[in-house]
């Protein structure tokens, strides 16, 4: 799109998108680090991840102030308005992703022992790969303003949900087999739930990117249900 007559407006919008992307990078790393700390029982990495969340919260607060200022000063319309509302919502989702990653990191400390068996975490690792790739792709879609890529992210969320359901089943089986792993499995289950929710946030972001680019709402093509209730 061509530039605004008032060029400072362009600079502000560019800075806004930059801040959202920066938040995205931090949230992505926090998520990857938290799970990596979980799998390898790396307490130091877990602690660093918890501490790192402060940076994300600070950025979020700064961005929120900037977004309100932009609305007040520029009275955005059309594409600009959509970019600003999308940034507001996406930043909110990213802040939540950071919180969920932090929660996973806290559980690493709570478990505070090597996993009884590596196999317990295999499902969680696999799910993380998928959710992380979703998050990466949606952040790329945001930066490139790519509505089609955003749509693909929304579609792929069903897969994350399906893995979550299978992990739920799996962990349930382990707990029945050996009550000594119950504590660890419950923590892992919460971690899996957090990761599943990170996937949901990636989907939210995808919907906002799609709206930002096209001005149309992305049709919700499937009902969001937690199938673990039926397990």
């Amino acid at each position, binding site marked *: 799109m*061509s530039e*605004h*007559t008032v060029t400072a407006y362009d600079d502000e919008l560019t800075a806004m998108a930059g801040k959202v992307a920066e938040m995205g990078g931090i949230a992505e790393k926090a998520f990857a680090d938290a799970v990596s700390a979980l799998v390898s029982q790396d307490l130091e990495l877990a602690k660093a991840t918890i501490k790192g969340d402060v940076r994300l919260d600070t950025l979020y607060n700064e961005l929120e102030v900037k977004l309100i200022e932009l609305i007040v000063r*520029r009275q955005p*319309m*059309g594409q600009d*308005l*959509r970019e600003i509302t999308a940034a507001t919502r996406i930043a909110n989702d990213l802040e939540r992703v950071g919180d969920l990653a932090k929660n996973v990191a806290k559980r690493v400390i709570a478990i505070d022992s090597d996993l009884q068996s590596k196999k317990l975490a295999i499902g969680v690792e696999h799910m993380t790969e998928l959710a992380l790739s979703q998050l990466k792709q949606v952040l790329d879609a945001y930066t490139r303003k790519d509505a089609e890529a955003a749509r693909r992210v929304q579609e792929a969320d069903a897969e994350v949900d399906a893995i979550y359901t299978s992990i739920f089943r799996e962990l349930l089986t382990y707990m029945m087999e050996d009550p000594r792993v119950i504590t660890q499995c419950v923590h892992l289950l919460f971690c899996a739930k957090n990761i599943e929710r990170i996937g949901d946030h990636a989907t939210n972001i995808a919907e906002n990117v799609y709206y930002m680019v096209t*001005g149309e709402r992305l049709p919700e093509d499937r009902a969001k249900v937690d199938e673990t209730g039926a397990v």
Partner: protein
Amino acid sequence: MNEMPNFEQAKTMTESKISANKVQVYYGDTHAIKDVDIEIQPRSVTAFIGPSGCGKSTFLRTLNRMNDTIDICRVEGSIKIDGENIYDPKVDPVQLRAKVGMVFQKPNPFPKSIYDNIAYGPRIHGLSRSKAELDEIVASSLQKAGLWEEVKNRLDEPGTGMSGGQQQRLCIARAIAVSPEVILMDEPCSALDPIATAKVEELIDELRENFTIVIVTHSMQQAARVSQRTAFFHLGVLVEEGLTEDIFTNPKDKRTQDYITGRFG
């Protein structure tokens, strides 16, 4: 969701108050308005926006034949109000302008008393048979314009002595007094402060219950605030017309997008 646009379209087809078709306006050799088609809904506010010189005021003025007063101006195409061609030779422009009232950019009260400002139109159109009836028209017009409480005790004072915002509402009351069906407003708030503007906007919102209002404005925020539909003009062409919320959140044409987001070079 899919039914909405069809419903809107169906409404447009059957109930338009004003229906313009292939309208051209020439000032001498200059082709100022090109091929404008628009359907204007009754009892609603339609806003015309666009950069200076885009033709929005020129087009507005075709709707009550104000352009007739300019010698070199020529209008072609068809403009119908309630299905009747207003450029038909049988139509009396004075009667037409009673039906299609107008409010201008700068408040222009007559150099007469507040009372006479309102009473002038009904008198020349013979709308009242007695002093009591005329009093009633003046009072109700001022009430509809939200001015009654402010002026009821000084109706004999000159209209020109009021504040700018009051003068503009007086001009709206004057337009209402001859019971028009359509009110055209050409940047009615550009000379007013924000509070007077808010009062006029509140008034516009109340008036749309009974009148069809077309407003030309340079303020996109104002168009967004007061109108149900918005039309964007550029270089004499009607680029895009639609629901106001759609025009300001998701315009279809690149030129509309550039204009509303402040990207016009």
